[in-house]
């Protein structure tokens, strides 16, 4: 299929990008890796007036340390993430989830920031970002920057806190040290498919006790969801199959997942419980 005609701008700095967005007219779309945007344009489900292509904005690409945080440029590709040494050391949950994204071709073009800004609840990275309480650094007109926490960033289906005229520039996530165990448990029918349900789990242990737990759910609602009840049940508990299974049984509490060809809602809720048990079991080193 062929997209409808559009204007195309390819800036090389964030400043130029913001100007291009401001000047782009009523319906501006930002092109990061294009792995979601291009298909919907080709199907003519989207027909933006202007495309602002960020692929030449080199300052948006790469991973760096800042104290206790990792700072990931919005245009860092999935492949970059999977091969980055800082991510390998402090961001294992991100790496594990990113390795499950689609296929190698998509991972070479698709970007970390693009996937988060697209905010598809079936995407793998929003639930990870939510579980990690990531902070989203957003640049606005004139270059002013604001930071939004993950809990406020994901507003609704395909909708984030990024306003018109703004640009996601980087994502800050806490470094997880060696006392953390992580697992991204993804359930889909074929390797390249979206998650039917997935669970991102990060668990910090002191001895036999769980001291912190962060559980994010993929595709269990219109946004990524924290399994707060599971987290609460895990913290302070002794690590055992019984405690993990008991906690995981609460994984679907409060969720309202959709029904589609792959799964009806009740089955998704069942999967959330099973996958949470498996994810936490693995993350806790059981």
């Amino acid at each position, binding site marked *: *299929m062929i997209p*409808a005609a559009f204007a195309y701008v390819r800036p090389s700095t964030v400043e130029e990008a913001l100007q291009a967005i401001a000047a782009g007219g009523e319906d501006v779309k930002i092109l990061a890796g294009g792995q979601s945007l291009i298909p919907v344009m080709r199907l003519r489900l989207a027909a933006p007036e202007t495309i602002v292509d960020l692929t030449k904005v080199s300052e948006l690409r790469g991973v760096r340390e800042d104290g206790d945080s990792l700072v990931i440029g919005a245009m860092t590709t999935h492949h970059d993430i999977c091969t980055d040494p800082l991510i390998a050391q402090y961001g294992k949950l991100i790496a594990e989830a990113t390795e499950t994204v689609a296929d190698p071709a998509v991972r070479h073009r698709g970007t970390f920031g693009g996937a988060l800004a697209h905010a598809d609840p079936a995407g793998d990275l929003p639930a990870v970002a939510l579980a990690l309480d990531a902070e989203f650094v957003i640049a606005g007109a004139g270059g002013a920057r604001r930071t939004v926490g993950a809990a406020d960033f994901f507003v609704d289906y395909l909708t984030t806190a990024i306003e018109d005229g703004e640009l996601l520039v980087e994502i800050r996530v806490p470094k997880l040290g060696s006392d953390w165990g992580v697992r991204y448990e993804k*359930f889909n029918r*074929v*390797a390249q498919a979206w998650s039917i349900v997935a669970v991102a789990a990060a668990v910090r242990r002191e001895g036999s006790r769980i001291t912190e737990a962060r559980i994010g759910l993929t595709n269990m609602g219109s946004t990524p969801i924290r399994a707060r009840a599971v987290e609460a049940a895990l913290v302070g508990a002794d690590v055992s199959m019984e405690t993990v299974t008991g906690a995981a049984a609460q994984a679907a509490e409060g969720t309202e997942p959709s029904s589609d*060809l792959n799964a009806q809602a009740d*089955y998704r809720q069942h999967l959330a419980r*099973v*996958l949470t048990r498996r994810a936490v079991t693995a993350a806790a080193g059981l």
Partner: protein
Amino acid sequence: MTVTEDPSTATAGAPAKEVGSARLRKEDARLITGKTTWTDNMVLPGMVYMSVLRSPVAHATITHLDVSAAKDRPNVVAVYTGADFKDEQGSIPCAWPVTPDMVNPGHPSIAVDTVNHVGEAVAIVVARSRTAAVDAVEAIDVDYENIPVVLDMEEATKDGAPLVHAHTESNTSYHFVFDAGEAGTGGDTDAAFDAADVVVSRRFVQQRLIPAFMEPRSVVVGVSGDNYTLWSATQIPHILRVMAALTTGIPEHKLRVIAPDVGGGFGGKLQVNPEEILALLIARRLGKPVKWTETRSESLMTAHHGRDQIQYIDVAADREGNVKGLRVRLLADMGAYLRLITPGVPALGAFMFPGIYKFPAYRFECDGVFTNKVPTDAYRGAGRPEATFAIERIMDELAVELSMDPMELRRKNWINAEEFPFTTVAGLSYDSGDNEQATQAALELLGYDELRAEQKQRRESGDPVQLGIGISTFTEMCGLAPSRVLGSLAFGAGGWEQASIRMLPTGKVEVVTGSTPHGQGHETAWSQIVADQLGVPFDDVEVLHGDTAISSRGLDTYGSRSLVVGGTAVVKASEKVVAKARTIAAHLLEASEDDLEFSGGKFSVKGTPGAGLGIQEIALAIFAAHDYPEGIEPSIDAEAAFDPTNFSFPHGTHLCAMEVDTDTGFVKIRKYACVDDIGNIVNPIIVEGQMHGGLAQGISQALYEEAIYDADGNLTTGTFVDYLLPSAMDLPHFDTGNTTHAAPDNPLGAKGVGEAGCIASTPAVVNAALDAVRHLGVSDIRMPLTPERVWRAIHQGGDGGDRVAEGSNAYGGARTTESGYEEAK
């Protein structure tokens, strides 16, 4: 299979035999890199581009259609509607009227006043660029008045059901019956059932599938005066030429059809497509070259689909497990129209339901049913996978009913090696084989005993991951086909194939084949055959195909026929070349023809070492033609047509070991082993590739693929996000092997391999999953075995149910139960 060259076939001094050697495919470099003549790569001077406005509704009257705004769009050349072509478009041809009273409602290429499925052409923009055409389509204004939609075959065949075609009396196109008692090939079926100890009845659903070939359909029409050249990504350039000529009125000799390199078909390009006819009509109207290439979305929505049957099957047996009778009733979804062989696909399957078993009685009935969906037609296996699935599934069900081992039940009833050739209850003469030998080899490849032990252990320990083993001992009819047999089945053409061989002055060889490849590797295999037949180097052979001006006679590629029929024609043509060359060699060597022997490409005089003449030298000599015998033509070129006397019957045993995660319903193939008897093998690499691809598609029917229409008749699986295909990541390693019983009815001894993997694998996979969870009360799970269906079947009973909300599935919610099936509520 071990892919090695067998040195024992090479005799000292002679070149190694090409047939049987694992030659890399000579055509692959250009096919894989795409640097070749894919139809969409074609650009002709002044070419214009078609884009099609397609109906968004399944069943409606077109009440308003205004194309004036589209005509005013930039670079638009013309905009057409059905009204423009209603008097000249004729009907898309249906070549297989399976019964004399079959109802064919006619199939316009573009809708005139009503639309009968989503995706049907309503208007066409022709523009100077593809983008201009696509943009202008959006400016067309059209209103529809909906008519009740017919989707569910069981509902559509009831009295008083809404009609797809108002001018027909019912939604049933035909009622086809094969009764072995009446045909004299078996006993009375009702009597067999009345006398049986045990009867097992099931309702199986063959879901609708999409062929999903890699290269989209594409058409280019060139115009030169009143001559037309049609390039198309088609499997059937020869049949298309005849049919397009008859449909459009362009005289056949004024129409040349070229299938350049074609990227896959799987039966999906065994068609005369509406867009091919429309491109011809528009090129004729405008006097300009025209191109149309579909988008993937158009392909999924409007290229013909496959399968889509509801199968009611009953098997009768005695308590000892001897089968006594088989009864099959089919509802076969035709879709909205009859395309080239739409009605024939299920009828072809009629002869394969008895499988490899010695049924004494058999009755088959099939209703072809119209629905408001895109037409169905050939898809890899075409009728035979459906039959194989049903018989291999019901044999497992019978084994359960009798508390017998499913392999023992099969062994008790299958045709034994010494009984070949065997005439079946369906009247076919199975040519050769040994079911026991193939089965033993497959059991060893799988490691059957160890896996059965593990299965037992997992059951006893209540492991959440259960293990099952599925069996499919299958056969199929290939090498389509003896022309007289096709005639007796009312098929519109014969089944012969043509080849010719041109000996060029430099000794190089051109082989012209009527069997047009679309990825099978004909160029390599035919070169191997000719290299052996003529004793020329493999690299000296070029294979020409797909152009009706070069290959004037042919019946194209489908039904695993190319090697068996087309390859044999190549052998026959080669034999004629050698015979003609022998006369000239005798003349030049001053010897009697009877004293010449031909070996390794060279004629030599018996008992006279040293004296000899190569066939490539003779090619030059007869080109010069300075010295050749009186009374013969100065040529050693030859052509041959071959019409087989029987089908060929590959058979084999496929075994699947399946892990089922009872917590999630996820199924994972643990191991897959198969041993196929496909007769003699020309190229083991090509055979291995065909097996792998066939297995992938057969497994994919079992686990992944399903074309779903919602309650309004919209295709909800309209992209590859929803119409799921597996990649190599999702498929297991395949342990493949062969037994070899040469086909007796062709000189190559080949049986055909294009469809075997696809036909055999599907029931093995489903049987494996059921074997894993049958002790949990599961007796059927509908294909594809989505995790949700498997999980529901385990935890809630039934067959896993629909994949969308109640009432919105094409099958209406009827479900399989232990006692047969219950109707939709």
